[in-house]
């Protein structure tokens, strides 16, 4: 068993472990919240490089994650976030205020503030490129998506300052690459590689030449977060997507309005 597979086995055990239930718990939201609390904590040093990276093969990663009972429940209850394809009619973007030492955020969602990846960008390689494109999560009747749920555990945060405003986003028909597994993520990085620190990152500028967006599903997050995937003679950099999201690399928004 590799260091990466041990992390994933432990992760699945935590996902499926018994946990307390509050009197008014919604089972679906409780499962999603438990997923977020299990997967998102930063558990590796920030100076991770190829020699210290926990690695696992994509197939083994998917095989381990496929054994999760929690993911099976989510698959049945909310297929759009587990199986895809992304539900274009239920996408939400959440506006949060910036830390106090940064310029205030433009509170509206507008194409003028959309920063598309391109050849002119000199950005550090990233598996989840912030400050680039637009991120949305899939909502249901009970929530504005997993990013909204993530924020709920950070009330009073000085990093994600309130107010938090969910925006309902309408999108045109779009070409979206579905990442449903570790194998899908490894294939994406292998097709558009960007080498750095001995690891392979996705080249978002090149991906944007082909795709409007990339949809990271829940199983793909579970199977790739914090671990590297063996691809040929190298390894992918560990991801930190945290939650089901779609990264829009091109502006495909046809309408957007805050939810009040």
């Amino acid at each position: 068993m590799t260091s990466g597979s041990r992390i994933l086995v432990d992760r699945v055990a935590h996902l499926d472990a018994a946990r307390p239930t509050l009197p008014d718990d919604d089972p679906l939201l409780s499962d999603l919240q438990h997923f977020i609390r299990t997967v998102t904590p930063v558990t590796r040093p920030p100076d991770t490089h190829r020699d210290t990276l926990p690695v696992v093969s994509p197939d083994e990663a998917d095989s381990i994650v496929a054994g999760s009972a929690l993911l099976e429940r989510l698959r049945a209850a909310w297929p759009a976030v587990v199986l895809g394809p992304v539900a274009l009619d239920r996408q939400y973007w959440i506006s949060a205020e910036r830390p106090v030492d940064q310029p205030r955020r433009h509170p509206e969602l507008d194409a003028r503030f959309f920063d598309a990846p391109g050849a002119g960008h000199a950005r550090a390689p990233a598996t989840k490129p912030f400050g680039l494109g637009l991120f949305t999560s899939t909502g249901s009747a009970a929530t504005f998506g997993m990013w909204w749920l993530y924020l709920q555990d950070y009330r009073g945060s000085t990093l994600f300052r309130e107010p938090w405003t969910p925006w309902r986003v309408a999108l045109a028909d779009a070409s979206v690459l579905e990442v449903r597994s570790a194998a899908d993520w490894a294939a994406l990085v292998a097709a558009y590689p960007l080498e750095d620190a001995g690891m392979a990152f996705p080249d978002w500028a090149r991906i944007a030449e082909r795709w409007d967006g990339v949809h990271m599903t829940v199983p793909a997050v579970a199977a790739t977060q914090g671990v590297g995937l063996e691809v040929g003679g190298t390894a992918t950099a560990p991801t930190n997507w945290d939650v089901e999201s779609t990264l829009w690399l091109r502006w495909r928004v046809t309408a957007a309005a805050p939810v009040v």
Partner: protein
Amino acid sequence: MRVRLLRAVLVVGAAAALTAAGTTAAGPPVTPQPISTGGTVVFTRTTPPSPGSASTQAAGAINCNMTVDYPHASGHNPGQVNVESHVTCDGIVSSIGLTTKLFRAGIQVASNPAYATGTFFLNGQANATCLTARYGGSADTLITAPPGYTPVSARLHVDGAVVQVNC
């Protein structure tokens, strides 16, 4: 005497932190509290649940654990360094108060309180402008058990790892 004085200081500190959170003026009950240097505490049931009680607590003990993550350059908010702490219990407790601190080169640069009642989980975080340096995080929690458990409340303190963060 030294132990008593330390306890008094810590209790006052906890009350101040929780008041600063703006969540409660009264704060949790101030009672003599065991002081743990570790990241775990066990609350043991001393009385059986009352018949017909709506309580979901059935366990004879509630285990709580606190962890502090590595400080890291925030991907969500570039230009910031962030540290997170987490308190997780395997049963519902009356309240959790949590203060997370961030240190740059050994000097505290951020402190942020969090508080929740009737929960089994609480996140905390502290962030500051990212300057290339060594960073560490720490967390202090005051966990108040539900009625019928001992100790009534407990404090935990955890120092996280000190790591280099390049901005």
